[in-house]
């Protein structure tokens, strides 16, 4: 098994600690990210993702707990940690008054890229991220999507072992989103560890080897995509279209243990957690009565698992997690 690249142990971060309303952004979080994996951190707004990322990237210090990056303590040796990481923050971070090319040249200086390689690496990322037509334009004159592209492209110039990406593809068009995802995969293939946060669950599903879901600063689940999905293993996404949707049928469907239930006209969208046999029997019976025009069923997605975990977390006693022993 690969060595841990990032180790987070019992991490607590309390903002405004001495005020009458302290905010506990992280509450005893423990995570392990292994070398060479793509690790996705998911959670709703305010879950603690950005706070964790800021601690991992040495921007702020935790209230308690320990963080090591490649076995270096992030609080005691922040400089050693910074020498091994490259970061795309959520905020746009570009030199607005410099050209795209000069943005790369300046960035290269900070990351000690040998002088002889700066130009070739710059040209490579300019091509990879489709920035050729804008290379000599000042960044201030570019659209927000292009600015984001410049910011993200910078980290692919350097060879740091760990890359942190906070909502990296936000604001990008589908073509560039694809280019970014491909670049992330390529970096992972070369052995670099990628730690990303995203709101786009499909992206996490497509990219990540390991996923952690956090809420209120606590870990709800952590494991491989299949392991996370298995936490909602009874969930089925079902779309049923009827010739006529009667109140009786609607009541029967509502009686099923669903986590989502929506209906418009004669179509019902539902996510059923548990009792698949009963669902299938009901659908078969309705079909025999010639009341179903169209049936679509699919197994749980990461999104289903995500919502189910959040729902359960709202009703769970404090101090317990969903994943039990499956997280690293």
């Amino acid at each position, binding site marked *: 098994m690969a060595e841990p690249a990032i180790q987070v142990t019992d991490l607590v971060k309390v903002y405004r600690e001495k005020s009458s309303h302290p905010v506990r952004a992280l509450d005893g979080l423990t995570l392990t990210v292994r070398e060479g994996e793509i690790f996705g951190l998911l959670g709703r707004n305010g879950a603690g993702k950005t706070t964790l990322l800021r601690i991992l990237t*040495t921007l702020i210090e935790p209230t308690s707990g320990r963080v090591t990056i490649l076995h270096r303590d992030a609080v005691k040796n922040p400089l050693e940690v910074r020498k091994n990481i490259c970061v795309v923050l959520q905020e746009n971070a570009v030199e607005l008054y410099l050209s795209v090319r000069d943005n790369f040249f300046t960035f290269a200086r*900070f990351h000690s890229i040998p002088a002889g390689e700066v130009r070739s690496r710059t040209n490579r990322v300019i091509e990879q991220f489709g920035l050729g037509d804008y290379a000599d334009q000042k960044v201030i004159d570019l659209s927000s999507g292009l600015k984001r592209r410049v910011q993200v492209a910078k980290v692919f110039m350097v060879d740091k072992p760990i890359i942190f990406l906070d909502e990296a593809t936000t604001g990008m068009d589908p073509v560039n989103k694809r280019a970014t995802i491909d670049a992330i995969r390529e970096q992972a293939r070369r052995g670099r560890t990628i730690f990303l946060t995203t709101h786009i669950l499909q992206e996490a599903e497509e990219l990540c080897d390991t996923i952690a879901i956090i809420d209120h600063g606590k870990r709800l689940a952590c494991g491989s995509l299949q392991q996370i999905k298995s936490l909602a293993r009874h969930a089925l996404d079902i779309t049923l279209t009827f010739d006529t949707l009667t109140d009786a049928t609607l009541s029967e469907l509502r009686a099923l243990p669903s986590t989502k239930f929506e209906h418009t006209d004669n179509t019902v969208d539902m996510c059923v957690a548990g009792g698949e046999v009963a669902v299938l029997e009901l659908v078969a019976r309705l079909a025999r009565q010639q009341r179903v025009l169209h049936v679509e069923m699919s197994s749980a997605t990461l999104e289903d698992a995500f919502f189910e975990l959040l729902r359960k977390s709202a009703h769970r006693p404090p101090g317990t997690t969903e994943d039990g022993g499956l997280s690293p």
Partner: protein
Amino acid sequence: MSMIIAVMYREYRIRTTSMTWIFYDMFMPITYLLLFGIGLDKAFHGGIVTHGVAISYNAFFLSGVLSMACFGIAINTTYGFFVDRDNGIFYEFLTYPMTRGEFLIGKIMFNCLLSLVQSLLTIGLGSLLLGISLHWENIVFVLAGVILGTAGWFFFLTPFALRIRRNDMFNTFLNVVYFVLMFASSMFYPVEVLPGWLKGLSYANPLTWHTDTLRFATIGVGTFEVVAVEALAFALLLLISFWFAVRTLRHAILK
């Protein structure tokens, strides 16, 4: 060292995107001396007496202009924090492989170079156009004073810029600070002619310490022992401010 040079390089690239900035930085002090200095020189009928020596107002005011220019460059550099924060790149910088101290030193080093060039232009043109008699043998001390002044004021202002965070509030703060520091100092007039309460305030003002040091080095006016103490006090202020600036940068962001 490579990180300090990287920050300097970045400051240089940004500064050179506008020739207006460069022109302003280079020629503002000498323009100030030529316009304001000549006006006051005429108003004082050609000269003033300080430390028992009669000198032209232009000669007296030269060091005031130099210290004002150092303060001005330090202010512009601290405004850079707000620009960087608006661009979002400020936080990214803090994840780069450098210490907070290297970041601050790199940021001011390029601007110290600008200070040096503008000071040499001001001294050279002041001497040539206004006939100010200079102690050229002290030029190294003058330039050292310019570097220490620019860096010192930058480190002094940095914690305020980082903690205040709002550009408009910082602007108001600077206006108040600059107003008090500038007029309760030896920048425009000799401190010994001021009334007692203002004299005390002026002697306690680091802008007076800096201006007096530069005045002693440029035209030899002042008492060596007093100026030495003032120079040491300013150096101490620089060190304390640097420590405090690094600490603020380390602990007071993103909270």
